């Protein structure tokens, strides 16, 4: 009878953590990695003072290896706080990039645990303690739950511990040993059973599997979810002398039944001999894989499958099992550990059904093919996840996250031509260009991704001096809705290049941008906190000062609603693209003078250091941002009056004006899809209530604005499309939409309806 559980066959080494020669286990771990083993394991033994502490060793090895998975079998559970062990496990998993696998066991020397100051436990209690520790560790790492962890066991008690951190991947938890009670625990709650073949024996393995399978079924689990791992030891010899004592072919013969009949999914060679490691890896592993594939009715999978618990969280309407092979390893679905890190974006909570994370343009095409087969679902495209209008997350749909396409490369120093992936963030771009004495004006926040901003506009800290980000764009490479990969520039697909600069989200996924960047040395950077008790006067004077300033200066002002008992303060920021302190101060002075100041900070710094204002952790946005956007030519007293009324209403909690103008307006309005040349300011308001914000904005600011910047607009009413694009631009975009995306695959970010009249077959 064949009893294989269908796991990907894996191989590991079990190395003795000798303290007398600490470099040896580290070298053996590195050799295991070089030889292609899937994991290296260390087992602790509290009775063995000549061994290194395995946790310390494992963390050290994590720092000296790149790929191999790291397994600890902790058999001194009563000496370790399971809550601390949980945090340690998460840390090691994070630091190692998701390479930790953790076994808990009872150990052979309970008296050694007691001698070290641990509790005296009988065998039954020892197993019970391990089971409780496993519960605690699991619960500590379950960050889906917000409540503090309380646990009241016979051996471990927690009185309200905070959960987390979230590990990098699903850390498999195994139990190590062959006690019958322990095996039942494996069946009810562990991800794997780690047995020692020399000790348990083939009969014991069979008996153990039976106990585990029964316990699993009683607990409503599929026994196939539980990986069976055994440590083996043997010697290579020219002729067979016994079990695992002979030539590689004899090893294969001995091991084959373990895999095909006893369902062993991982074979771990216990050896400190590099010769044995090498022969096993080179001569046993490939032959055994072949023998297994011959013996089994179907070959074993190449990737690790998802458990029933993970699959249970899948969303309807998604063909999860048909995710292209190129994307399967990096795809994230709702039951995965990584899901918490990718579900939401900066300002928006989300619950997508599937996040695809392509690493190459070909994989982007694969992702789009998958998306085309799921047209009934929302589709979000995410670079940095900061989009306000761009729904780079959704509920139950697909997200294509191009964060991995984040290369930054200088193509030509003479022409300052750089090539940047859509997943790079602007702070990384600024840092990469800084050593060349270059900069590319981008947004105002370093965490924003390149892709979203560079297909929409890019109103940044040097807008008046150097224009929009898209004004520097010279070419793009992109994948269209039908999967075609194209290049667009002024000479190649010029229509598409025109459309990408301002309406890119409607036309495809850009996989690389080529920019011509500017020479930028040190810059002046100022932050003022100004008295805003007279908001009308303040805004009017600020606007006038900005318009009067040389183009070196670009500024922004942030205001909030009046708060009871607090002075009204506006934040004014400004960058002066000049490395001359006197010029910086001279240009800033009129800004500082627009109102009495509470605080000011002026530094001569680099553009890169101003942009280094974000951290790179995952996003945890919640809800939906509610915003309006508009361009205005001047901050007139009437506009300032209207803005002050908007603020006084309490409907707006964040009011932001940024200067455009200057070089932005040097570009002719029809040069690209972004058409708002001529305005001097861009205004954004964030509110908490859609209807109230829209009503007030329409009434107060609607008459002052001309056009909007789609990156900051969330009003879903269709007329906003006409604010984003003037009639001639919109007509041309609709004609191009019918050419490049007639079936509207890209419909989630200022969707342009194809012009059916001009619909053609490409």
């Amino acid at each position, binding site marked *: 009878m064949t009893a294989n559980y269908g796991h990907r066959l894996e191989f590991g080494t079990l190395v003795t953590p000798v303290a007398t020669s*600490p470099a040896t286990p580290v070298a053996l771990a590195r050799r295991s990695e070089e030889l292609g083993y899937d994991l290296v394991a260390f087992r602790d033994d509290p009775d063995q003072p000549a061994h290194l502490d395995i946790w310390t*060793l494992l963390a050290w090895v994590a720092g000296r290896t790149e790929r191999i998975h790291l397994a600890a079998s902790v058999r001194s559970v009563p000496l370790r706080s399971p*809550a601390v062990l949980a945090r*340690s496990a998460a840390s090691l998993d994070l*630091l190692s990039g998701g390479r930790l696998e953790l076994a808990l066991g009872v150990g052979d020397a309970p008296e050694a645990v007691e*001698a070290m*100051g641990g509790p005296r436990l009988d065998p039954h209690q020892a197993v019970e303690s391990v089971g409780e520790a496993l519960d605690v560790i699991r619960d500590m790492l379950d960050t889906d739950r917000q409540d503090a962890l309380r646990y009241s066991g016979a051996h471990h008690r927690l009185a309200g511990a905070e959960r987390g951190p979230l590990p990098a991947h699903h850390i498999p938890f195994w139990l190590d040993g062959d006690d019958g009670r322990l095996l039942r625990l494996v069946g009810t709650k562990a991800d794997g059973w780690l047995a020692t073949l020399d000790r348990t024996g083939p009969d014991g393995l069979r008996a153990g599997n039976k106990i585990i399978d029964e316990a699993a079924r009683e607990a409503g689990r599929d026994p196939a979810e539980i990986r069976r791992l055994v440590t083996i030891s043997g010697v290579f010899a020219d002729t067979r002398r016994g079990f695992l004592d002979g030539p590689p072919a004899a090893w294969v013969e001995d091991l084959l039944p373990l895999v095909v009949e006893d369902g062993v999914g991982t074979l771990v060679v216990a050896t400190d001999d590099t010769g044995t490691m090498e022969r096993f890896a080179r001569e046993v592993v490939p032959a055994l894989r072949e023998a297994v594939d011959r013996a089994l009715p179907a070959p074993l999978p190449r990737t690790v499958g998802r458990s029933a618990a993970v699959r249970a969280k899948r969303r309807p309407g998604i063909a999860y099992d048909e995710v292209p092979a190129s994307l399967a390893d990096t795809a994230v679905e709702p039951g995965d550990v990584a899901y918490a890190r990718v579900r939401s974006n900066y300002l928006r909570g989300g619950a997508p059904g599937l996040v695809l994370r392509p690493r190459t343009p070909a994989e982007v095409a694969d992702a789009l093919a998958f998306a085309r087969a799921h047209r009934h679902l929302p589709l979000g495209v995410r670079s940095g996840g900061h989009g306000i209008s761009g729904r780079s997350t959704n509920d139950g749909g697909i997200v294509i996250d191009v964060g991995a396409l984040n290369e930054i490369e200088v193509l030509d120093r003479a022409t300052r031509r750089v090539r940047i992936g859509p997943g790079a963030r602007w702070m990384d771009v600024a840092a990469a260009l800084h050593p060349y004495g270059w900069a590319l004006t981008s947004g105002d926040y370093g965490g924003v991704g390149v892709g979203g901003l560079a297909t929409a506009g890019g109103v940044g800290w040097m807008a008046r001096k150097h224009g929009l980000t898209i004004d520097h764009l010279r070419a793009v490479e992109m994948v269209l809705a039908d999967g075609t990969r194209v290049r667009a520039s002024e000479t190649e697909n010029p229509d598409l290049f025109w459309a990408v600069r301002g309406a890119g989200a409607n036309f495809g996924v850009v996989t690389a941008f080529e920019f011509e960047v500017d020479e930028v040395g040190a810059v002046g950077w100022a932050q003022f906190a100004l008295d805003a008790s007279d908001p009308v006067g303040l805004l009017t004077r600020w606007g006038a000062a900005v318009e009067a300033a040389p183009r070196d200066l670009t500024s922004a002002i942030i205001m909030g609603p009046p708060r009871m008992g607090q002075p009204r303060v506006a934040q004014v920021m400004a960058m002066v693209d000049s490395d001359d302190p006197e010029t910086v101060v001279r240009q800033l002075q009129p800004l500082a003078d627009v109102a009495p100041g509470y605080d000011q900070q002026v530094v001569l710094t680099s553009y890169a250091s101003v942009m280094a204002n974000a951290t790179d952790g995952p996003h945890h946005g919640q809800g939906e941002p509610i915003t309006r956007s508009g361009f205005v030519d001047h901050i007139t007293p009437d506009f300032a009056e209207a803005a002050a009324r908007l603020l006084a209403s309490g409907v707006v909690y964040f009011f932001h004006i940024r200067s455009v103008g200057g070089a932005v307006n040097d570009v002719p309005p029809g040069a690209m899809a972004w058409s708002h040349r001529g305005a001097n300011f861009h205004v954004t308001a964030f509110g908490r209530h859609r209807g109230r914000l829209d009503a007030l904005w329409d009434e107060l600011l609607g008459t002052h604005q001309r056009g909007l910047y789609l990156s900051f607009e969330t009003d879903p009413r269709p007329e906003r499309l006409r604010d984003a694009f003037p009639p001639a631009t919109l007509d041309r975009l609709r004609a191009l939409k019918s050419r490049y995306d007639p079936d509207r695959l890209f419909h989630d970010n200022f969707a342009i309806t194809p012009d059916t009249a001009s619909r053609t077959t490409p």
Partner: protein
Amino acid sequence: MTDYGHDLLFGTFTTPAAQPVRHAVDLAVLADRAGLDLVTFQDHPYQPRFHDTWTLLSYVAARTERVHLSGNVLNLPLRQPAVLARAAASLDLLSGGRFELGIGAGAFWEAIEAMGGRRLAPGQAITALDEAIRVIREVWAADRPGGVRVDGDFYRVEGAKRGPAPAHHVNVWIGAYKPRMLRLTGRVGDGWLPSLQYLPGGPADLTAMNAQIDEAAAAAGREPARIRRLLNVAGRFAPTGRALLDGPPEQWAEDLAGLALEHGVSAFILATDDPAAIEVFAAEVAPATRELVAEERARTAA
């Protein structure tokens, strides 16, 4: 004027933030390359926004070459002393003698209890630390005959096997502020590790606290100068001097030299998460401070 004559050490005290995952590692590697002597991390195992400090220290040790590493300070109540002793020896062995044991009696007892630790009154916690240090040093003393026996009120070790022995003499640096802790430091510590920001009277408080350590050391028959005085400091670099450790690097050097020569501080550990500050501290402040202190020591010796 108290100068215990130790070589000066300079180090970092960086937040062990779990996100971004490699933030603390990157800053430690920077400190190592910049030539600093020490990289230290606070240890608050009840804080899920931080990495586990032990795991982080071990990982960082593997990614660095020269710098010494320490908890600042390790949380004893959540770390079993016999296990900690073996872990510390292991890290010292793996790193080629680069580990030092900064340790404290614990605080935030509610959080410790929430994690399954034992709540102790402050006095009990000091006794427990005393016992733990005995356990740790006994485990390290691999050459002594017999098993480790410490029959304490809080830690009872009954015959545990000794070892492994660390690669070098691992210094036990104690985070201490109150009289009993200061006396414990004088009696058993290799070093004293307070934070300047927790001294209500500022550097002036060091005088009386040093005296308490010195007295306790002398009473235990130890040379007070054996006990290194370390100090966590914070501040900012600014073009013009405004206050202690708020000014240009040259002023920092004078401030630190003053602390060294007047208060016997011989290790300055900068609390910062700013790579630029770490570079300035290593490249400008440390050499200038060393120079000032060396000149003054030469002058008084002459």
